[in-house]
């Protein structure tokens, strides 16, 4: 599997990351190198093995339904470039 220049631009756009024309070719190379590395996994024979998410049998950890968090709005917005009354302010987005 490999990506072409169009796919690189598309992925960047979907992630809202600005990529200049000069950056496309080097990024394409880097991504394809990563994909090639991962592709080595294809050599492993997994016939008859169900897809797994963990190599150790573990049950998903669950919590009780109690309120244990929140109540610090000023901390939540602390790093935001712009805020008002503890709202995040962003450039206008309207449908």
């Amino acid at each position, binding site marked *: 599997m490999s990506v072409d220049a169009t796919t690189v631009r*598309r992925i960047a756009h*979907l*992630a*809202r990351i600005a990529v200049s024309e000069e950056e496309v070719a080097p990024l394409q190379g880097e991504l394809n190198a990563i994909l090639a590395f991962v592709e080595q996994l294809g050599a492993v024979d997994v016939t008859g093995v169900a897809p797994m*998410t*963990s190599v150790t049998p*573990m*049950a*998903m*950890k*669950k*919590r*009780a*339904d*109690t*309120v*244990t*968090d*929140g*109540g610090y*709005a000023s901390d*939540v*917005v602390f790093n935001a470039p*712009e805020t*008002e*009354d*503890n*709202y*995040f*302010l*962003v*450039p*206008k*987005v*309207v*449908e």
Partner: protein
Amino acid sequence: MTAAVNPKKLIKGGLHDWEVVIGMEIHAQVTSRSKLFSGASTEFGAEPNDHVSLVDAAMPGMLPVINEECVAQAVRTGLGLKAQINHRSVFDRKNYFYPDLPQGYQISQFKDPIVGEGEVLVDLVDGESITVGIERLHLEQDAGKSLHDQNPTQSFVDLNRSGVALMEIVSRPDLRSSEEARAYVTKLRTILRYLGTCDGDMEKGSLRADVNVSVRKPGDPLGTRCEIKNVNSIRFIGQAIEVEARRQIAIIEDGGTISQETRLFDPGKGETRSMRSKEEAHDYRYFPDPDLLPLEFDQAYVDALAEGLPELPDAKKARFIADYGLSPYDAGVLIAERASADYYEAVAQGRDGKAAANWVINELFGRLNKEGKTIETSPVSADQLGAVVDLIGEGTISGKIAKDLFEIVWTEGGDPRALVESRGLKQVTDTGAIEAAIDAIIAKNPDKVTQAKEKPTLLGWFVGQTMKATGGKANPAAVNALLKAKLGIE
């Protein structure tokens, strides 16, 4: 579903009749104290960003931990929809970019949802009922809220809703009219409220619908559909479908084609319009969330939850019809809300079920509606209404006096039986007293007595006069019989 086409449900076009095909995705907010993957509160109406944890704000390094009650609520809902419960389900990341989605992805379930196929029985106004297939139900996170009207150049983002658990309930395209669609949402809402898994409050956004609409000539394969996003009232769902179906019919009859797209319903203008910004082919790049293990449980867990379920609307309706002799319509009205059904049962217990239903539906519901009250805030308790029904049943008061008594209990409260005594509302069955009143009226109106012999309908006037003279307390049957005898009317 391959039900026969019902000609009554077709929409008339310029050229021929059209069938509208509707499927729905309902987003129902799970009733829980805290969020799906964080310990922040789900309570509505907090100060901006006050019910937000660092998980909901997607701060680096934070990990989601699932709320076990949300899982139980999804399973209960699945059971209420007579659906398959999947013992293993998987959470996936649905990637998209929007300011009120700080993670940059929504944790949802894509390939392996917690609940599979089920069905909902929907009763329609004309007594007909349809079965609507449920395709799936999955758990997912809600997004935050953006306010666009606070400032000319900026949007305000509040993440209080971010991370609250939603159940997305996807129906099959089994609905064939706006009426069916409205009835389906109403029924689904009733089931959710019975189960206690979603409060169904559409004004607060606890229940929202995405409506898929397409049209076709009866018998043809499915047409291209448009999805109307985020419709937030049952009335608007009906209006949006009517408007959208007619828009599509007009385009096709003019020789055009429908392009699959997402649209918004504008209730003010009564139109749907394209959401252009969302057009750019959605590419959600779903993949299993590496922060979460698969959600697994055994049948014993499901059985224990099934054990704790309340009687559901369909079963209750059938029982009301069988045990209390109610019509399907009356039973349907009474079971629409669990509180109404409980109230009715308290009134009907040990009494005539039909009489109790009449009083609850006609007098009580009528009055509650008029005054904008609910069954929970009713000034008349089930015990009080039961006493009124008893007093009529034993012949202590007439039906007419009972309405006056209801009024007194509504406005002043008190024990109906004691009120009948203290206010002298008892029905007069003593024929001597009634006769005396009748004799006085006859003596005063000799002309009317003569006329009545020719025109027996005048009897009604005499009945009215007698009731007036006795303060409405005379037994109507006794009055009628005595008058007929005295006036010589057959």
